[in-house]
Structure formats: C-alpha cells, structure tokens
C-alpha cells in the first residue's frame, strides 16, 4: 500500500483577509484612500443585542387596539419661544441638497410632513422646494456655512448647530466636483465642477464658551423663537452633552458611528467614533446629573431601523431619534429594482455606497438630471410616510406590551442585554442575571 502525504487546504490569514488584501491592492493601484457614503459597516454592539421584557405578573400590559399610547414629543421647550411638537419621535436627519437630489429632498419633506415629523437641511443651505414641502424644517448651521443666511434662519422651525456627526467625529466633508451642478455651485458660492470642502470646525468659534455666545447670537437674530439643537458625533457623549447644555442648547442630537455620511474616507468611518449603543447612557447621565433630563431633549441617531430600535433608544432615555440611511432606503436607495445597473457600477443592491460619485441608479444621491427623474417625489414621500408610521406603530406595540401609555415612559428597567458588551454599554442586566458589567464593584 502506497502512502500519500495528506494535503491541508490552503489557509488564508485572518489578519490579511480577502477584503484587506483587495484594499491594499486598490490603494496601491489608485494612490487614494477609499471614499464612500453611509456609516460603519463593521459589526458593533447595537440595539439587536437588547430585548424588552414585556409585561408579567408584576407589570400589566395595555390593550393594543384600545388603550392609548402617546407618541408625541415637544422639542425646544427650554428657551425657545416656539418649541416644536411632533406626532412621532422619529425625525429625519440632516442631509444636504447637493449630496441628495432635489427630488430626494422633496420626498423627505413630503414623507416627514405626512407622518407629522420634522426633516432637516444639510450642508448646502435650504431650498425653496424643501421648505415648501416640509411642515417642520430644521435648518443646519454648519462649519462650511454654505447657503447660510438670516432669511432662511428665520423661516426655519428650528436651528441645528452641527459640531460633528457619527460617521466622522472631528472630520469635515468633501462634495466632489462631479456633483457640483450650476445650482449647487450657486448655492455654495463656488465655481462649478471643483471639489467643495466642508470644514471640520466652525470658522468663528472654538470651544464651549464660544459656543454659548454663538447660540446667543443665533437666538438674538431669530428673536428667541427657534429651538436650537446642538449635534455632536458619538465621541465623548457625557462631556459633549454636558457642554452643549451649558452652552444653552434646547436639544442635543447625538449621532453614533452607524450614522451615515454623504462622503468620507472609509478609514474614518470605520475607525473613529463610538457605536450608538455606547453613547446613549452617558448622555442621559449627563442630563440627569445637570437636572436637565426631559428639559433639554436628547435625539439619538445612527443605525435606527425599526420601531424596536426606536423603543430601545427611548427606553435608554432619549426623547426622540433621527433616521438618515433608513429614510433613503425607504424612498428607494439600494433597491434591488436597479440591480442590473448596480452591477455595472461594480457593486450590488444593498452594498452601493459610492454616493459621492453622483451615479446613483435610484436617482437619490445624484445631481444628474436624467437619474434624478427616476425618483418620483410624491410616491417616494408616501413610502417614507408609510415607513415612519410602521416604525411608530411598532414602537407603540412594544411600549403597550411593557404597560406604557407613552413611549417616553419606557425605561431601562424594561430591557435586558443578550451580550456582555451590550450589557456594559446600555447599562442593563445581562438576560437572566442581575449583572451589569462595571456595576456593583465587578
């Protein structure tokens, strides 16, 4: 009998896996880092790692089809003369005209308005279509100040001072030249076709003491009518929240690393910032320590996809949430309907993230007139409204099961964690135990 040496199968490195090898080759071939849209794609502890307990002998539930479960939220009650009231705590996050087509912005406004919530401008200013189709519009005050003017400040319903965003805390942005149409160029006071940098920090203030004076100026310009939000990326949520409150914010918007961007370096998106789940409790703790919980509202964003995510964020202490990526998906982003065209771009539905290149088959992240026509803003608005209503209903379903007649009555005690990591971050017990890592001395 002859003996053959057994062969072991080829073994690839866990460190140098296929994706890593491909990225090294791509960098070597192109000489540029990878720029893309959306948020982190790595797996991080998230709301999926939490479960609600529901009612039991010691908690009784509310009847799903009969007993009321309120979903309304008031934002800006601290200082603003005209706080805003939303029917649902799910808001639409800031996304710019420029990054998005005019039709996409209109669809977001239409959908938000039908659902009774707010939408938000982005880096590039406010368009008339957006204002016209958005019953409640939050106007972002960004470092670039593209399109910033006092008339739009006054016709906004709230002002959001953007310090950072979850996809890139500490980073600016870049709108590449191919998306700079005549209209976008005009709104941003720059020549057509050149790359437009969005600064990483504000040009006329640095630090919390300056921010307090900047907020004073904005309030004086708008006669103290508008709620003023401060948006931060998920970096140092306890201190950022405390400093925003100290600076006079009515609302703090906190965006975790799953939050999307129109265009940023992949290395930034994947390696800077904290998961949304890790941000909420420190921010709520800061508000509680200052006696400002529920007085200064907290909006959480970054990876919110369902009513369950909404309910979990609120149970951990948020007042509302914001969605960006999910809203784009609802209006048609990455839809398998366009699979053939995604393939031509070297990608597939569900993975398309070259939003900065302006070739979006769905007509959303583009300024190409022909591609833009593919998005019907009325139909897309209806789809967004449907999605928002489903999410709201889902959150209500969970809240009623926990015996709550308002989404804001959900609390950490309603939750358990499936993993030690999620337990530590959300500061709720590991399921089946009373253990929260880091609490009680171990």
């Amino acid at each position, binding site marked *: 009998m002859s003996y053959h040496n057994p062969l072991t199968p080829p073994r690839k490195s866990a460190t140098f896996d296929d994706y890593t090898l491909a990225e090294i080759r791509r960098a070597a071939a192109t*000489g540029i880092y990878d720029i893309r849209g959306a948020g982190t794609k790595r797996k991080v502890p998230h709301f999926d790692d939490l479960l609600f307990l529901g009612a039991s002998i010691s908690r009784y539930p509310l009847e799903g089809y009969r007993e009321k479960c309120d979903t309304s939220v008031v934002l800006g009650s601290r200082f603003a003369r005209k706080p805003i009231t939303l029917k649902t705590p799910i808001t639409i996050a800031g996304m710019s005209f420029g990054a998005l087509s005019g039709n996409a912005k209109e669809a977001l406004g239409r959908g938000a308005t039908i659902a009774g919530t707010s939408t938000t401008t982005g880096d590039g200013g406010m368009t008339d279509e957006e204002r016209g189709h958005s019953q409640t519009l939050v106007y972002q005050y960004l470092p670039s*100040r593209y399109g910033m003017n006092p*008339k739009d400040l006054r016709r906004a319903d709230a002002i959001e001072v953007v310090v950072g965003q979850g996809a890139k805390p500490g980073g600016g942005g870049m709108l590449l030249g191919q998306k700079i149409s005549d209209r976008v160029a005009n709104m941003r006071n720059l020549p057509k076709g050149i790359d437009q940098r969005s*600064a990483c920090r504000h*040009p006329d203030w640095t630090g919390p003491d300056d921010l307090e*004076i900047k907020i004073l*100026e904005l309030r*004086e*310009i708008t006669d103290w009518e508008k709620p003023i939000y401060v948006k931060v990326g998920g970096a140092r949520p306890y201190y950022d929240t405390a400093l925003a409150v100290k600076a006079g914010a009515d609302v703090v918007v906190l965006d975790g690393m799953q939050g999307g961007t129109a265009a940023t370096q992949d290395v930034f998106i994947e390696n800077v910032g904290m998961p949304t789940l890790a941000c909420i409790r420190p921010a709520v703790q800061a508000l509680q320590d200052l006696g400002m919980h529920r007085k200064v509202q907290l909006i959480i964003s970054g990876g919110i996809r369902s009513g369950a995510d909404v309910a979990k964020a609120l149970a951990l202490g948020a007042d509302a949430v914001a969605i960006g990526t999910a809203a784009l998906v609802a209006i048609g982003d990455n839809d398998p309907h366009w699979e053939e065209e995604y393939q031509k771009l070297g990608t597939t539905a569900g993975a398309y993230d070259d939003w900065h290149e302006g070739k979006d088959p769905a007509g959303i992240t583009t300024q190409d007139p022909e591609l833009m026509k593919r998005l019907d803003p009325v139909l897309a608005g209806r789809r967004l409204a449907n999605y928002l209503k489903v999410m709201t209903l889902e959150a209500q379903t969970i809240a009623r099961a926990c015996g709550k007649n308002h989404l804001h009555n959900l609390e950490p005690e309603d939750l358990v964690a499936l993993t030690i990591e999620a337990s530590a971050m959300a500061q709720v017990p590991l399921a089946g135990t009373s253990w929260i890592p880091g609490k009680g001395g171990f």
Partner: protein
Amino acid sequence: MPVFDLSTTPLRELNSALHTLSKGANDTAFEIVNPRGSHAVAVGIDSPVSVEVRGSVGYYCAGMNDGGTVTVKGSAGPGVAENMMSGTVVIEGDASQYAGATGRGGLLVIKGNAASRCGISMKGIDIVVHGNIGHMSAFMGQSGHLVVLGDAGDALGDSLYEAKLFVRGTVKSLGADCIEKELRPEHLEKLAELLEKAGVTGVKPEEFKRYGSARKLYNFNIDNADAY
C-alpha cells in the same frame, strides 16, 4: 434718535427694536452707549438702519447684517460682521479673530488691525483693513476682496478659492495654493473703489500686491497631498 444704554437696557430690547422696524419708519438711526464688551450687539439687522456704538463690543457685533450701517467707535471682539449679507460695518479700533467670517456681501472696514483668520471662508464680502492682519487670514476664502494696507501674518489665503487678496505691506508667508498674481487694470480699478469706500486717502492702488488661488488643489490629486 433712539438711544440704548446697554448698562441698563437688556440686549434683547436693542436687537428686538432693530428687527421690528416697519417700512418707512422715521427713526432709523440708533445710538448705543455703554456697550462694555457686550456680545451679539446689533445682530440680524434686516433693514437700512444706521447704528453707532460708542465703545467696544464683544463677539459677533453686526452678525448677519443685511443692509444696515454699523459704526463701532471702539474695538470689536471675535466674529465682527460674521456672515454679513449687505451693508457696511466700520470698526474704528481693532478687530479680534474671524472678522468678516463667511461674509457674503457688504463692506467691512477695520481702521486698526485685525487678528488671525480675518475673512475666513469669505463668500463675497469686501474687507478693508487699515492696519495689519494676523495669521491664516482668508482661509478657504471663496469670493470677495480682502484689502490690507499693512502687513499680513503667516499662511495668508491658505486653501483659497476665488477670493482676491491685496496686501500693501509684507506677507509673512502664503498658505497652501495661494500665490502672488498679476495686478491687472481691473484690479487697480476695484482697489481704487474699495479704498475710497473705506475712507483711505493718500494710498495708491499700485502700492499693493495681489494674491489669489493657484487652483492646483481644486480637484483632489494624491500627488498634492504634501501641500496640506
């Protein structure tokens, strides 16, 4: 003429009065006394009023001015006339950081010196500084004119877009993508116009050098990475 004494009158009353003028109102000239470094003085003006401030102001004086004429008989803190849309702001003393930041229109005149980042991210404003300006001025300046009768600090015009810079004295250093450019007749004409508007006498446009963008960083190229 309405007079607001900021040692006894809340800032809110002043700015509210400036915002509620009806068309054709008679009292369009305001005087502010005892500003004592107050912030956000005369911000959000949206009509052709004139405001004279007797003393020095803090941050963001005349912020987002749209059509007013504001004269400060003293010095101004950071961000004076930030994001100005139109109108005129005159600072008789010195101005702190970020003077005229992101301004879209109008004329800002600083009769003393301006600190760092003067005209940062300017988007159409004209700024005339009788004295010197500090470092990183006109950073990412998009459009408009910055005229400096004295000297400029480090990194003038860093990452400049289409703003036009004119300096009569020395420039300590130029920022990335900012170069000296030819002073053509249309620039001399514009300079003469701005000098006259700013009340500058005895200075000729030919005494200035012009700086602008080399436009090499307008579209990303990895081989330019060393420039940043």
